[in-house]
């Protein structure tokens, strides 16, 4: 009986945060240089929104509560295309659902849609 009780004890899940690595990609861009954009990352379960602009190249790293998220990124990016031509264009990247629930780093990519 003591064994039943012992095995029944609750194992707490205290790893509540995770690091999300979100990388912008585009078929038109051979190499993305700088990104100046604001990312709104909304937890679909808690409806809490994290806003950040801390891009390193095309990648954003942010610490979040483990969960499911909506992501909206809007801003300006510089990139070079396949011909080596440099562009500066406005873009939007969005997803209605991405799982960022793993305990270590969650890597995800978002497609950029150019607005002009």
């Amino acid at each position, binding site marked *: *009986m*003591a064994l*039943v*009780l012992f095995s*029944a*004890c*609750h194992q*707490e*899940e*205290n790893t*509540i*945060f995770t690091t999300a690595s979100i990388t912008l990609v585009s078929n038109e861009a051979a190499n993305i240089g700088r990104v100046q954009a604001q990312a709104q990352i909304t937890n*679909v*379960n*808690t*409806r*809490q929104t994290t806003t950040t602009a801390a891009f390193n190249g095309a990648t954003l790293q942010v610490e979040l*509560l*483990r*969960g*499911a998220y909506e992501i909206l990124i809007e801003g300006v990016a510089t990139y070079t295309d396949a011909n080596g031509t440099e562009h500066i264009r406005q873009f939007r990247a969005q997803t209605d*659902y991405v*799982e960022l*629930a793993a305990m270590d780093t969650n890597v995800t990519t978002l497609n950029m849609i150019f607005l002009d």
Partner: protein
Amino acid sequence: MGTSLQTMATEADSALIEHTILAREITADAERNPALHGAAYRSSFSQLALGIDMQHQSEAFVQQLGSGYTLPYAGVDTYLRLSPRTAVWGSASYTTGTQKEVRWNSTSDYELLQPYVLADSLGGDTHRERYAFSGGYATTVGSWLAGAEMLFRAEQEYRDYDPRMRGVVTDLTIRLGAGRQLNSYLLGAAFECNIYRQTNSVTFYSEEGVIPEYQMTGLGTEYSRFSGDKRSLYYDGGGVALLLSATPADHNGMYADLMLGEHRYQRKLAEYNSMPLTTLYSEQAALTLGWRNSQWALFAHADYTKRSGDEQIGGTSDARYFPTIGTLTMYKHQLLDAYLGAFYTQGSLSMMLRGGYQSSNEKYVYPERQLNYSRAYGELKAQWIKATSRQLSLTVNTRAAYEGQLTHKIYMPYANMKSSFIEMVNHTYRYAKANYTHFGANVRSDYHWSNSPYGAFAKLGVDLTLCSVGEHQTTLQGAIGITF
């Protein structure tokens, strides 16, 4: 003839005293073991009662429980000693009535399931109806005591105006116990298993619209994604407990009781294919060590409860099926109650004195919220049982207690909270950090017919609690019935 009538009246008196004497509180923990309960009383005692319990608070101390109740009931309790080796017992009761001004809680059994309840800011009075049955059997097999007991409760709570909450509860507990005398000690062990289920919903009939129902997750937080219009859910739960005891067979010496328990309750969304939202875990350990003889008892008791809550992370919907993609332990609540006590009985008078310490540390992990308090308390109970004539006996119980605040702390992200949630959390804190003074008395009069095993009784009790925030609580209990 005269002698037999005297004997009958004396037997009725002694049965009443044996079953209601204050000293029973000392052995109550050990007697949760049905094997020991079956050996606890020498006499049979049964009682049929019609009564009413009423409570009024000038302002709800705990909004989720309401500001009072009016609960008439009818019930029968019986304990029959079939032979020196065997006893059976049982009870059946029906209770119906109203709970006043319940707010921030649309779920039955709040104290069991909190904080994981469905809630709204409006609330109102609720109707309650409860059927409870229990039965047990214990016997002696060789040098062993063996016993089993089953307790069942079915309850529904509902409101007949918007928001129309409804909670339908079934609650089954089974206990199996054993005991054996070893040298001068009676050792007991029992296993308890509980199965709990509640279906819970809120509906609105008014044309004036609906208000949000929140899936509460602790200290003023909610599971936002499934709050609002998701108003149909159910709870599945239960648990196990182990009860160990060692008592001196001649009621003279050291005694000890240990209880270890684990219960869990999962909240599921009925309209999303039973998607689990939260799971509440409650782990409890209680230890009593004491010494007693026929007149005195000295005891120390500690009860530690750890309640923790997991929130299940809902994934994306697929044909109204939501997978769970992870679990977060977000709610943590630790409760401690420890006291030292003494009991003394002399003739018709029994007294019990307790002094203790209580603490409650409640935390929501992220965004961080905390509500902590600790209290010291003292309590004095006295009981006087007197047969004023061969037919009439009187039992008077009195109680005075004081709970004084030692420490208190609240930490809330007020800037990011809705005003209604701030009001609710601050109300909880206001009463958590208050001081309480209690006075209570109840009087029971028993009349035993001269030529019959039957008797009649009437009972009236009053309790008054004064809260340091300037509010008070009055409780009235009245009952009439027959004993046999």
